């Protein structure tokens, strides 16, 4: 069993949430009895944004709660969707009467629990709508799967929709901005070492010394292909190829690039990956408007990375540049 810096596996989420709130410089608050983080000044007179999902993806999602991004984040147990009652409490707390947009990553459990919460909120007369993020190109979007997973690209949905809401747009307009990001964002990830849930006795999958797993998700679920370990430049090329074959980008079109660490990858390695990603995009004549390197959507201590590309237009650039309490860079 791997070592963990924890007290009791049953309390990791609530203890973490308390710690996040204490580190928020009085910006955030935890709701009583729920692992929900909200802006202290909630409800704010605007469309409210609520996201959430299983824990273990920090800084997602509590780290994105603040002016210009989310109004509330609901934290489920590690890698487990939060429950409808907690999501409902979050919705009630942040709704100012202008409606609430739920940003859901495409997982069966997340969708069911958020849908149940939306039904509860609607029954109380709260206007609720939702978007489902599905940026992971590793999973085929077909009738035979649940569809593509929502992964690191979700952070851009928080940012763009959050900026739109802060400008005073109505629920429909905020939703449209979120959907525009979803349409234009793609991600693919890989790992060289798996992660272990705090309450489990084994890692979620296993890899030999010379193996890697391509197409992993963010829940320690095995990827789509186990192969021999390659050099990082080759890995970056493979990931980018899959992303770019799914997202048509014309010469001189602008993109934003995100190199996301999975939790256990040194920044050194992320920067090396970023170097190659920048070179490859430049060679293809694609303009990189902005590059983000760091940990945005992790998977506990998994060693690996994901690459996200968001295709931009002027509207998205303006929203990406909008002021926010949360600094992504």
């Amino acid at each position, binding site marked *: 069993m791997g070592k963990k810096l924890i007290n009791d596996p049953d309390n990791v989420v609530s203890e973490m949430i308390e710690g996040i709130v204490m580190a928020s410089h009085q910006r955030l608050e935890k709701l009583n009895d729920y692992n929900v983080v909200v802006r202290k000044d909630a409800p704010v007179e605007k469309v409210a944004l609520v996201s959430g999902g299983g824990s273990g993806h920090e800084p997602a999602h509590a780290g994105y709660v603040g002016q210009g991004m989310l109004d509330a984040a609901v934290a489920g147990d590690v890698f*487990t969707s939060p429950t409808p*009652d907690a999501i409902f409490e979050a919705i009630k707390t942040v709704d100012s009467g202008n409606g609430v947009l739920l940003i859901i990553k495409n997982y069966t459990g997340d969708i069911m629990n958020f849908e149940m919460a939306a039904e509860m909120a609607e029954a109380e007369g709260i206007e609720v709508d939702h978007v489902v993020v599905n940026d992971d190109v590793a999973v085929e979007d077909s009738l035979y799967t649940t569809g593509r997973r929502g992964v690191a690209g979700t952070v851009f949905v928080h940012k763009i929709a959050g900026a739109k809401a802060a400008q005073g747009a109505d629920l429909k307009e905020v939703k449209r901005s979120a959907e525009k990001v979803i349409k234009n964002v793609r991600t693919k990830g890989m790992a060289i070492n798996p992660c272990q849930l705090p309450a489990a006795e084994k890692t979620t999958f296993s890899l030999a010394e010379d193996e890697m797993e391509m197409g992993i*998700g963010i829940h320690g679920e095995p990827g789509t292909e186990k192969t021999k370990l390659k050099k990082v430049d080759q890995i970056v090329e493979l990931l980018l190829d899959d992303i770019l074959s799914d997202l048509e980008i014309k010469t001189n079109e602008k993109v934003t690039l995100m190199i996301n660490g999975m939790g256990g990858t040194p920044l050194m390695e992320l920067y090396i990956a970023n170097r190659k990603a920048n070179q490859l995009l430049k060679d293809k004549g694609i303009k990189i408007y902005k590059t983000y390197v760091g940990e945005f959507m992790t998977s506990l201590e998994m060693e690996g990375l994901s690459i996200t590309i968001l295709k931009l237009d002027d509207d998205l650039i303006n929203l990406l540049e909008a002021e926010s309490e949360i600094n992504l860079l």
Partner: protein
Amino acid sequence: MANKTKKILLETSDVIIENKEYLTELDAAIGDGDHGINLARGFKKLKEKLENETFTERNELFKLTAMTLISNVGGASGPLYGTAFLNISKVISDERLDLDDLVEIAEEAIAGIQKRGKAEAGEKTMLDTIIPAAESLKQSRDNNLDLETALNNCLETAAEGMKNTIEMQATKGRASYLGERSIGHQDPGATSAYLMIKTFITSYL
């Protein structure tokens, strides 16, 4: 009647808690390795609530089970089992149950799971245990079998259904991301459903 139902639900809780590691292991192979952990958390809570309260009607017990699972399990299994138990609470009476009642209960549970999960038989889910089990009850009713034989047949069919998921390719839930790599593993949801059905039947007989 409520006392016996309470005892059955307590035994079900114990069985799920005892199988926490086993279910989690099955899930780690094709999912995210938390099925046992999540269900055990919900059933542990249910046990506490059952032990600390008295009940006079069966439907109260099933409603409590539903709400406890919905608000404590999370993932997909919380809403799915929660909705199943909620639907059962709507149709279960305090009379002695006959085969007609059991068929109705099973059908309601399936309707709840399908409403939430939008899955069909053959997609490597809990329904692959529950649907054949319900079909078996229906057949026994149509053939006028006695309750004990019917329940034994049902248990056997449920076990077969669970085992049949080994050869299936998942098209719903997280296991679907694996495509063909999901073949060869028994579905954790089908397994937890079997454990519940088995406990209901063996405690009832």
